[in-house]
């Protein structure tokens, strides 16, 4: 059977959801004739026309806020922010309008919409084309934040996002676009929002990660396995609201945990996950909750050796795991 790449999975999800529901439309820069800078929307204009695949002006405020408005009156917008680095102008609309609409109208109005955001490093994209900033949104209840690591999840979660009743930020890690390939079912499927995936069962230690770091954690786990260390790897997939149950169950089982995240350490997603584990599972822990994260610097640097110095990898994860196990 043909293997589908991560990015093809996204294109399929968009195509199928636009076929299924005529309320779905897309808006973003260069998504029409050009098919998106990474070609995620390739072919959609031909099939659905310029009214449903809208080439937006360079207006990140409008792309987000206009989508909020369209969602209010019955559309299902799927907006694209070309690079996570350029989402800052949209923050105003995302945080103040999209995330709070249900709350500040006492549940009268909601924003069933999705914003797709291309993110992440390890691609030599340079400082302003490699940032990963899910943590900016993680602290905003009202939003759903997704960051898949497999083609199956990318397709299934994107479909859930488009079909759901809540505002979603859907991060696509560009390093995974063409690297990750797998066989996908022919029939329609979705992946539930709010559920983490156990990628590998293990007994000795829990690794929690998402996105590219889920793969790096799997690489580390594979290496550790050869040394007789059995690591359980959990892929969060949904960053907000995150799956406490699955993570907590695993930590209760292994009593040791290493949290891995690509973004900077301070104020990151894993800061919260770690704090929650420390707060609620103190009695179960046999070692301090530890983290492997991007460096605490303003952004991921450009020069290749420096970029790799910034990023967590299997080696760094392995080192920290060993330290925790030796505690």
């Amino acid at each position, binding site marked *: 059977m043909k293997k589908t790449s991560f990015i093809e999975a996204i294109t399929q999800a968009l195509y199928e959801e636009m076929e299924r529901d005529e309320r779905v439309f897309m808006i973003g820069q260069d998504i029409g004739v050009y098919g998106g800078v990474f070609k995620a929307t390739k072919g959609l204009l031909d099939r659905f026309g310029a009214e449903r695949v809208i080439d937006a002006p360079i207006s990140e405020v*409008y792309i987000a806020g206009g989508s909020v408005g369209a*969602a*209010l009156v019955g*559309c299902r917008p799927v907006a694209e922010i070309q690079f996570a680095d350029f989402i800052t102008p949209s923050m105003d*609309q995302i945080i*103040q*309008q999209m995330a709070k609409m249900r709350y500040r109208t006492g549940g009268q109005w909601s924003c069933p919409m999705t914003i797709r955001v291309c993110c992440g490093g390890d691609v030599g994209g340079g400082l302003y084309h490699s940032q990963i900033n899910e943590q900016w949104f993680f602290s905003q209840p009202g939003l759903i934040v997704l960051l898949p690591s497999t083609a199956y999840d990318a397709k299934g979660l994107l479909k859930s996002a488009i079909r759901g009743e809540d505002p979603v930020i859907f991060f696509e890690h560009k390093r995974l676009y063409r690297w990750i390939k797998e066989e996908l079912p022919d029939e329609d499927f979705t992946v539930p929002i709010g559920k983490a995936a156990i990628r590998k069962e293990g007994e000795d230690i829990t690794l929690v990660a998402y996105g590219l770091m889920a793969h790096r954690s799997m690489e580390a786990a594979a290496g550790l396995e050869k040394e007789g260390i059995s690591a359980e790897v959990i892929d969060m997939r949904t960053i907000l609201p995150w799956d406490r149950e699955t993570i907590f169950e695993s930590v209760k089982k292994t009593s040791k945990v290493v949290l891995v995240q690509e973004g900077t350490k301070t104020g990151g997603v894993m800061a919260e996950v770690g704090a929650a584990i420390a707060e609620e599972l103190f009695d179960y822990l046999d070692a301090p909750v530890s983290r492997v994260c991007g460096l605490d610097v303003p952004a991921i640097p450009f020069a290749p050796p420096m970029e790799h110095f910034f990023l967590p990898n299997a080696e760094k994860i392995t080192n920290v795991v060993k330290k925790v196990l030796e505690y």
Partner: protein
Amino acid sequence: MPATKKAAKPGLKQVGLPEETLRGLYYNLLKTRTLDERFRKLFRQGRFAGTYFSAVGQEATTVGPTYGLRDDDILASSHREIGAAVTKGIPLVNIVAQVYARANSPDKGKTHPCHYSWRDKGVFTPASTLAGQTVVGTGCAMGFKLQKKDNVVVAFFGEGATARGGWHEAVNYAGIHKLPIVYICQNNLWAESVPAHMQAGIENFSDRAKAYGFPGITIDGNDIVLVHKTAAEAIKRARAGEGPTLIECKTYRYYGHSEIDPADYRREEEIEEWKKKDTVTRAERMMMDLGLLTDQQREAMIEDINHEIDEAVNICEKEKYVEPEEAYNDVYSKYFPVRRDEY
């Protein structure tokens, strides 16, 4: 001569609006003013918390464009549009409840005294980030167009808000796609303490429309007939698919930016000058000249309105606040329960 005497007083024909519309406009002006003054008083008495943004003086700019809108047309308002809330038909008791933040408030007490929302009447809620709802309102218009519906959006903002980037992104988009939206700029000459000439290097804010490829017009915002007619024409154009219009209404707010602002940055003469052009008094004179209103009728109307307000205030003051646990609700749809911490 009777003939010249008659000409001095305009007839219905010269005014160019049906009697029923004039009555409706006047009633909403009066109701807005009366309610607005009541809210100011209630706030000063400490009857509700936060602050209150009075729109006394500029009622015509909100009542005029809103009167005649359909329930399924969208109102994208900001913080000074009590007149639009009244005219669009949010039930008075719920407007009062919003201010009081009680259990019967549309938002269950979650946002701000002046952030009215009412889904059945197409009123979503402003965020305090200025011009934020101009962007969302424009998106609503985009949604209507995509669905090939003939609904329109009327979006309100002050002249100060037009300095924001998001405002420009929104109107630019509306211009590109000829969206069914009418932008009403309420130029009350001041943005908090900053005069209009410090917000933009142009005299008329409607000039901005030119840069976005659709008509802009500046009018006397205290002339209810002119405001209504101009807006109605623009709404008609928008509904017919002919695109947006930006209408700048020159007007004035009599009181501070909000009730906690003494507004001592303004000259007394400026205020007095504008009070001579008061929109309600002018509408009244016109109605009387047309023979549509007598002093007694006016008094009776005010009494009725006050009675209605008394009742609403009574209901709301007796109404409970929501249980504090309500804070956990309306975060996500029912599929995603919010974690409840116990302290």
